[in-house]
């Protein structure tokens, strides 16, 4: 029996968006978030994380492609206990652009 195999989703053609997460700051939070993306085969193009001024929280910036699964990814992120909030920004957000000089 031959089953139809789904084509891997080409993310390259999609616009990029920036997700801004506010999370609890303790070991393991990052693994919950990265694991969620990894097991759904959703690539994260960029990750940036620093504690906020109240050090019990951290802010995580994620650069991702806006494919049709993004909506579901955001809903799944919001279900994580350590994720306090998720905000979505367009590609115009410059947090990753300003960092580019450290990478290129």
């Amino acid at each position, binding site marked *: 029996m031959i*089953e139809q195999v789904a084509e891997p989703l080409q993310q390259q053609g999609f616009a990029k968006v920036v997700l801004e997460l506010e999370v609890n700051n303790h070991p393991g939070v990052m693994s919950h978030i990265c694991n*969620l993306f990894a*097991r759904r085969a959703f690539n994260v193009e960029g990750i940036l994380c620093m504690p906020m001024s109240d050090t019990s929280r951290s802010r995580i910036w994620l650069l991702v492609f806006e494919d049709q699964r993004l909506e579901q990814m955001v809903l*799944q992120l919001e*279900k994580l*206990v*350590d994720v306090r909030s998720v905000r979505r920004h367009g590609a115009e957000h410059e947090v990753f652009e300003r960092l580019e000089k450290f990478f290129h």
Partner: protein
Amino acid sequence: MMQMTGAELIVRLLERQGIRTVAGIPGGAILPLYDALSGSDVIRHVLARHEQGAGFIAQGMARVSGHPEVCFASSGPGATNLVTAIADARLDSIPMVAITGQVPLSMIGTDAFQEVDIYGMTVPITKHNFLVRSAAELLEVVPQAFRIAMSGRPGPVLVDVPKDVQNQLVSFEAYPEPAVPDPAPGLDMAAIESAAKMIDAAERPVLYLGGGVVHSGASRLAVTLAEQAGLPTTMTLMALGTMPVDHPLSIGMLGMHAARYTNFILEESDLLICVGARFDDRAIGKAAQFCPNARIIHIDIDPAELHKIKTAHVAINGDVSAVLEALLPRVKQSLRKRWLAHVDSLKSRFPMTMPGCDDPRTHYGLVHAVAAALDDEAVIATDVGQHQMWVAQAYPFRRPRQWLTSGGLGTMGFGVPAAIGAALAEPDRTVVCFTGDGSFKMNIQELATLAEEGLNVKIVLMNNNSLGLVYQQQSLFYGKRVFASKYRGEPDFLKIAEGFGIAAVDLDSSPNPRAALAQALQSRGPCLIHASISREEFVYPMVPPGAANTEMIGG
């Protein structure tokens, strides 16, 4: 000011949370907790023979009670042995708190003896998990674990506690309050109004109930909605029992092994009212071809389930009980004569056929004979395989939490320990575990636990000496190339049961199997009931994997 060790604190917090039975297996890294547990007058410990068994015992208790239940395991292999039971609880949304011992904090990350990153391993299969870094943290972590396990869509939570944290002294003023579930999300009344209008306007609506109806205790409300609006009602595997199967509006289970008429009724529906179900592929077949002409109302406590597989026309995030309560007064009474008459005609044209159902030596007949000897108070657990689907098709389920089965993960080996858990939680009920020889062998060591506890669990073993569903799929879809699905040796299950100290009845050699079965079911205590089933009996109808539900074969 109170002072105690972390281990003692865990035990007190479990007691205060209402935990009365814990299943588990001790080991080096969790010995402080076991030592503290030995001093509890309230909590009884059930010693499983494999940690997976302990996990399923806790699940069995939680599935019949609806409350989070607890299992213990030590570090390393103890913890990894729990993984399947945790994943199973996750996929069926069962509230459970697993507490594992861990090597001391200072040794974490050194590849110490019996060290494994169970925290990292269980990230994808728990609702949430914790690695506790100080005894003081337990004051917050333990109630949080219970709150998370039972709030919203229930699920498993793991708490990993290093040995030195169990031994650490902690001083505190007062115990934290026992956890209660978070309040349900507020109701979107506009969406509920439009759902009511859609139901009133529909000509061929179908009510589609899932496991969420059981979790929310909404069975009665769902049946009322069906009666009020004249809705033929189908149930997922997880929802069997939410509407009595002999209710005139019941159209039985849908999906891969549904009756033909059920899937045909769904095919013709113009409105699907999906309550607490998640459009699993075994239920809906090929998603694009499921209910092609139906608009969809989807009610679920988990917002991520809405629009996930099928886009809903009206999506309502909320506790299904609260939503149905709000919906009911807004939905008109309707007899819906024309649609229900058509449903009846489909039912009589494409009925569920159960060959041999009067003969207790056949698969359907055995299920019927068991049901005939019991009342609705009995709890029915199954393992995973052909027997599971035959029971799902043929057993007359009439109440929620009557039916315990591993739906989402489909775990062989689930049945016996889950039945033990059910009997521990409800010792006055008769618990029947239908199993197959393949599944039974996967947690057969729990017969020792069962014998020790002397629980009223009857194991009905349908023995075809093969991995029946694999044999079936190879016969149907792999050119009859039967490979690795037939056992070459056959154990003597009757002797095995007796070896474990459990009574055994062989229906094969019994002159009157129906009477022997009834007698075994009626006498108290554990019993193995063995029956041979022909390997050539398949589960029909069957939707080939990946096909649309209307492309059923057989039956």
